[in-house]
């Protein structure tokens, strides 16, 4: 068990399974296929991200450095949150990027989503957390990796 402390972008208490991308997550490429098919969960469709390609990330803690790619990114996060197929939490090792931040803010203000986002967790966090492993998130930005 190891404890990390980050900055709360959108807080909450949660415990569940982690999915880890060591590369930047391309939001549009990741979510678009499942969202377009109106699926009830997201299977990652980004061909360039071998860490998470083909994995189900709905209801998981998506652990990543930042998001990258198209500026539809924020709207895509807002949309998957409104469809309730979003990852329960976005855990960023680096400072959150502008597109992900937009998506979290849009989801919280306009969709009343309870999506959690914590950033600045540090590189060691990404090196410690493993896909399929358990993480616990606390309201104050603490993330415990089991």
């Amino acid at each position: 068990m190891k404890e990390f402390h980050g900055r709360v972008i959108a807080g909450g208490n949660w415990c569940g399974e982690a999915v880890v991308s060591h590369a930047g997550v391309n939001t549009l490429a990741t979510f678009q296929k499942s969202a377009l098919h109106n699926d009830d969960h997201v299977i990652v469709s980004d061909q360039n991200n071998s860490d998470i390609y083909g994995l189900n990330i709905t209801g998981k803690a998506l652990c990543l450095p930042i998001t990258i790619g198209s500026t539809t990114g924020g709207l895509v996060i807002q949309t998957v949150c409104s469809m309730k197929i979003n990852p329960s939490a976005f855990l960023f090792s680096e400072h959150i990027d502008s597109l992900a931040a937009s998506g979290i803010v849009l989801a919280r203000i306009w969709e009343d989503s309870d999506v959690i986002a914590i950033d600045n967790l540090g590189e060691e966090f990404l090196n410690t957390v493993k896909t399929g492993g358990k993480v616990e998130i606390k309201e104050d930005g603490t993330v415990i990796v089991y």
Partner: protein
Amino acid sequence: MEYKMQLTDEQLAILNGSRGETMAKVLKTLVMYGDIFGAEKLVPVTHKEGHLVTSFGIALMKPLFSTMDKLIDAGLTTEGKFTVDPRPLEYENVKCNLLEKIGFHVMYKKQKDYEEQLKKVGLRNEKAFSCACYLDEVGNIPKEGDILSWAESSAVVYANSVLGARCNRNSGMIELFGLIAGYVPYFGLLTDEGRRAKWKVIVNTTKKPEAQILGSAIGMKVMEDVPYVYGLDKYLGNEINDDAISYLKDFGAATASNGAVGLYHIDGLTPEAKRLGDSLIEDDAQVYEITDEELERVYKSYPLMWKNKDAKPNLCFIGCPHLTYKQLSDWCDKIEAGLKATGRKKVAVRTIMTTPPDVKAKFMKDEKYGKLISMGVKIASICPLMYTNNPMTKGRAIITNSNKLRTYSVAKYLKDDDICDVICGKELN
């Protein structure tokens, strides 16, 4: 609400509902967004013409339509008119079979309604649909130093880098909120500090690098950081001419889609690099050397996502981002020479070139337009990405010279010369 940035009395009043509940939510969104980045204030948008990324009425994007309805019901509009990314469909020039049409009808059934919403909020006109809004023919061109509220990653990186304007990589909807409020949070690429380079990229190749592969390599390496690129002016010169515009447009789109680059500096060419030189580079900047071998490594790393990997290409998209007038003209010459070499009169693969409606209108008066059409090429103004989003098109073996399209679809990327060979009927080794 709790906020950290300094707000004016007027902004505070808006947050407290002086201009209605929806406007308060619009400003609250911008303030919360800015607070995340430590923005100390909101600053006025000085280039009032916006550019929106969301041009498509995909039915599932319910939050988009419901938020637009709320803005319209509240009587909110942008101060200046805005351009927007390309439309998803154009049956006249991009023919579809019945199944694909059914797919498109279901996917984009909100298109007409959404365009009506855009008009009510501030869309410039019917021809305002292009990702390359900054081209002369389209005319949404900010000045150096202007503060923008734009989205569309390729347009933002172009405006920041080639025009010297200042814009963050805003998300869809945030850009519209900034245009309605007339303010954007002051952080990141709006500040001098945020425009400094954390990477020195040395281009050390034996020939002019393919713009789309160079951009891809740099994007994947630097992610969201600012690169300062040495050695490209050797190939592009020291003035922003038509060739440089085309090259930098495609290069930037690849940096932004394969990574998250919002600004690059090209030594001796782009405005800030010319004015400030290597003083733009951080002392502890990392170095990335681009060689022929490195570009080939990156090119070979692209996975082939076709269902049948041995399929013969049956559709080709050229023009993501939309082509410039010069690029249309150059492609005409290239294909003409290619067809002459293979002894064909028409292209062997259905080929669609995409360009802004205003560029197409101008190009239609050029004799080369007739030539391209007679060689079997179609010229459209759609977004190829929106076309490839249709699951019914997934069986097609699509080739493209766009690294952005490759990233967001199952299209296969080919270099310009290779794609020309394929569409002209020459077998590739």
